[in-house]
């Protein structure tokens, strides 16, 4: 079964309480938005961090992507708040 490594940053990481985990995909066609909804349904810190996708940004294999992007065979999916560098 297809799987992806999730990495979390900033308050997403703090709410979920871990910085990385491996998650199985329903199928390679599963989009980031669908996976995020599925994770939020776990409740607790996941719900807190992921319930409102508008507050989140995603990067698939280190590239910014939209939530309608299918995860496919990507190795790493990062979920985080909008960046505040500089």
């Amino acid at each position, binding site marked *: 079964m297809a799987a992806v490594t999730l990495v979390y*940053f900033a308050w997403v990481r703090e709410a979920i309480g871990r910085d990385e985990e491996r998650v199985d995909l329903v199928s390679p066609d599963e989009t980031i938005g669908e996976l995020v909804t599925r994770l939020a349904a776990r409740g607790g810190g996941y719900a807190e961090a992921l319930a409102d996708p508008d507050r989140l940004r995603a990067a698939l294999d*280190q590239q*910014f992507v939209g939530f309608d992007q299918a995860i496919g065979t990507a190795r790493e999916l990062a979920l985080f*708040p909008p960046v*505040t560098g*500089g």
Partner: protein
Amino acid sequence: MKRIAIQTDDFDISAELAALEALGGGGVASFTGIVRGEDGLVALELEHYPAMTQIQVERIAQEAMARWPLIGLSIIHRHGRLIPGERIVFVGTASRHRGAALESCAFLIDWLKSRAPFWKKAHYADGAGNWVASRAEDEAKAQDWDR
């Protein structure tokens, strides 16, 4: 010359500028961002996504070299815990044309603000810690360069 460094340590601005000046272009522009100690802030904690930061900053640097006739570029971004007065970020550019040096410097810092995977947590004297929210203004500035 293209130098990119993502590091916890402070850096020597005069060494960076001297390297850019030595390229013979005639014009060197720079921007340095420093932690402000406003509203009782005691420290800023910068988290980043190492695997992505290097890729993104490298891409931004390439983009600047493609858009302006630069002969040198230096980008340094710190992470970790920084106190007020400490430098966070440095961008230096060298070109034969002062406009190219200054504009590309503005471009790079605007992009670092809204496209580099860093997150800032502000720690206050009363013990509170808040993740700094991104500013719509910063996103708009980065988008302005796409026009």
